[in-house]
């Protein structure tokens, strides 16, 4: 059995890579994908602790987080398409107006 600390460090690594992606990339789609990476890291933690405490609740929470990720991706990509229609670009730096 792999000790739970290894799962936590894997989740930590994925989380930090996601944060670096959010901060350094300019493309809005890649920023959204980095957010998916972060949510995924959280899921690993929840499922690892679910097995550690022999309790099913962690797996349920990870299911709710996946639901959230789906909702977030749908709305986020809708915003990206609306933004692209108006500005013909995908760069996050260009997002500086609330209303066109």
């Amino acid at each position, binding site marked *: 059995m792999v000790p739970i600390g290894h*799962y936590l460090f894997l989740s930590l690594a994925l989380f930090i890579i996601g944060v670096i992606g959010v901060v350094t990339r300019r493309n809005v789609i890649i920023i959204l994908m980095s957010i998916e990476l972060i949510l995924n890291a959280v899921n690993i933690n929840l499922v690892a602790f679910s097995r*550690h405490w022999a309790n*099913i609740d962690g797996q*349920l929470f990870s*299911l709710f987080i*996946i639901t959230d990720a789906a909702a977030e991706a749908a709305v986020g990509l809708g*915003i990206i*398409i609306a933004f692209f229609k108006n500005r013909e670009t995908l760069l996050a730096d260009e997002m500086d107006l609330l209303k066109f």
Partner: protein
Amino acid sequence: MTPQQISQIAFYFFAGLAVLGAILTVTVRNVVHSAIFLITSLLATAGIFLTLGAQFVFAVQIILYVGGIMVLFIFVIMLVNLDVALHQLQFNRQKWVALLLALALGSQLGFAVWFAREQGVLDIPSGRAGTLSPQNVEQFGQALFEKYALPFEIASVLLLVALIGAVVMTKKRA
């Protein structure tokens, strides 16, 4: 090889694949390649869930994340892809901010895990809080529809709101 060893090898294989896919996702220039590497990382994470004995989350991860969300992403990439975009600068000038943030978060969370291990929190507890069988899909369904029935319904409302929101965002201005 014993099942123990197989599960250990599987864990380290999938962990390496997940980290590699994640690193390539945030460093590759092309958006489509980035999405493909993210799919690799998500599939490897599904494997991690399998080593943890979470069969249902494994299936949901593949069906929903890889089959649903990532297909949506690739659709949108194809809708908005510009050749111009590839020639633009792909990275912010925020390298040092990112490094600082990564160091701060990494040391903080790493210290938290290390401290928990020193305190013995991460040892296998003697008095388990619950009972989890190796085949736990049935337990999962029971908990979902009994203990967590209300959050489950709220999640469906959330999805409805997201559906309406996505349609409103993308429809043509009247």
